[in-house]
């Protein structure tokens, strides 16, 4: 009886979460659908005056891509035509000040664009296939003339800032309690993070780099690990100020990989470079055609490239699959009718939850893998000749 009771409770709990999640996803997605439909119909009327059959159709690809890509505002929720989103600052530098009231440097909020419906000072949030969502300059005739230098605080950058603020806040708190508890047992947050720090030190840095040299690389390895981890997790929480797809953004992973590359290159010792330019292979692999040096040199570039792609692809794929499973509901709804969509919802939500769970695991693994590989590259760069 007791077990049955417990089972009942667990099931009830699961069911509750299930339906809350379902309701949330429906609420946040339906308006997007409506918006799509509206755009489509408007577009259709303009161009060929027909396409009423398109009104109901649901473009899953567009829906998914929109959810995982960067944006100039942080969408919270939409009701029909009313879009609630956090406007983000746009910072642009134009080489053609004559198009923008004679000024070339502009800082303004993205709300000036009214979700892409209006132009501002000769700038436009492009709706074309090629530059969708990007800021473009307009010429005298109101046509897109090119892209200005854009260093706006996009959704990704804002997400980075949020994560960084949390990261610094948490770690400074840990540091202060570490200082306070010097020589004593750890307490609070310190207790939670220390095992991870010790793990990175003892299981990642020490074996990969070596007992003598690992200390120099610890700050970077720890920073990278916690940065990736916190952003992976924040990407899984679908409510602003979380949910920005930071580690699934190739620019972000590229910078992380570039840091690893730069540190590897700077700390590379004589032995490391010798192994690249003059590896221990039969002479005919090096002369007259420097075959092995070319291979080794390409390896130097490939390593950070692989780091970049691995993290990006994993996180991007996770986000995409979750959105795809959610959009399955609407695919069914548009293919048949709303009833079928509703019937398909438990399955697709169950799959989404499963993938989200998997993503939690992947978040850890990817943060660990990035850190471990960085440590291995540092280890290679600083290895002694033997």
């Amino acid at each position, binding site marked *: 009886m007791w077990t049955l009771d417990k089972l009942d409770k667990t099931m009830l709990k699961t069911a509750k979460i299930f339906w809350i999640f379902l309701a949330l996803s429906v609420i946040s997605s339906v308006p997007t659908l409506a918006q799509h439909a509206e755009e489509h119909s408007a577009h259709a009327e303009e161009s060929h005056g027909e396409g009423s059959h398109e009104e109901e159709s649901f473009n899953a690809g567009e829906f998914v891509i929109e959810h995982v890509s960067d944006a100039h505002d942080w969408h919270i929720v939409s009701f029909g035509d009313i879009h609630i989103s956090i406007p983000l600052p746009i910072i642009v530098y134009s080489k053609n000040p004559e198009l923008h009231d004679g000024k070339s440097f502009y800082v303004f909020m993205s709300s000036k664009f009214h979700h892409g419906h209006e132009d501002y000072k000769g700038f436009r949030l492009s709706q074309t296939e090629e530059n969708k969502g990007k800021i473009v300059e307009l010429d005298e005739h109101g046509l897109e003339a090119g892209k200005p230098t854009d260093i706006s605080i996009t959704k990704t950058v804002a997400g980075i800032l949020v994560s960084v603020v949390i990261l610094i806040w948490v770690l400074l708190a840990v540091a202060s309690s570490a200082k306070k508890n010097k020589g004593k047992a750890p307490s609070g947050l310190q207790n939670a993070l*220390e095992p991870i720090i010790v793990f990175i030190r003892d299981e990642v840095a020490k074996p990969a780099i070596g007992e003598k040299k690992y200390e120099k690389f610890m700050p970077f390895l720890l920073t990278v690990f916690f940065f990736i981890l916190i952003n992976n997790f924040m990407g899984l929480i679908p409510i602003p100020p979380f949910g920005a797809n930071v580690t699934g953004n190739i620019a972000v992973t590229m910078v992380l990989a570039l840091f690893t590359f730069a540190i590897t290159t700077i700390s590379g010792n004589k032995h490391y470079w010798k192994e690249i330019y003059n590896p221990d292979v039969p002479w005919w692999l090096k002369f007259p055609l420097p075959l092995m040096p070319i291979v080794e040199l390409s390896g130097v570039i490939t390593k950070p490239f692989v780091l970049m792609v691995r993290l990006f692809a994993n996180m991007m794929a996770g986000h995409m699959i979750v959105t795809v499973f959610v959009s399955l509901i609407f695919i069914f709804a548009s293919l048949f009718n709303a009833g079928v969509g509703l019937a398909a919802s438990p399955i697709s939500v169950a799959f989404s939850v499963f993938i989200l769970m998997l993503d939690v695991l992947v978040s850890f693994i990817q943060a660990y893998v990035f850190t471990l590989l960085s440590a291995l590259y540092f280890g290679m760069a600083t290895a002694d000749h033997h």
Partner: protein
Amino acid sequence: MGLVTPNPGTIFWMIIIFGIVLFILRKFAWKPILNALKDREESIANALNSADLARKEVEGLKADNEKIIAEARREKDVILKEAKEIKEKIIAEAKEKAGAETQKSIEQARQQIQSEKTAAINDIKKQVAELSVIIAEKVIKKELGNKGEQEKMVDGLIDEIKLN
């Protein structure tokens, strides 16, 4: 495709933000945290080491004590054994000495007896000689009481001299 093209603006901000974060965390977070960890590990290691040392010391003391006790016991044994030996030796010596003394006195007694005996024998011999002289005197006195006898004897003696 837009997704796999890195956005220069994002790269720009990411480099700045990540660089600053790395700097701040390195200076204000990782250094104290890692130092605290190291300190604690060292102090724990030290404590364990000193506990180990103390235990070893105690063990050493115990072993020393045992060694001393064993030594003392051995010494006692040795002393006892020596004492026994000495005792036996003394007894043996005493016995020997006593034996020798007895032998000596016996010998002395024997010698004395011997000399006494010789003296006595000599005395007896002298007395016998005196007695025999007395007896001989008496016999001769009796034999040579008459004249014929005296002449016969003198003749005998002269005969003997003639023959010579």
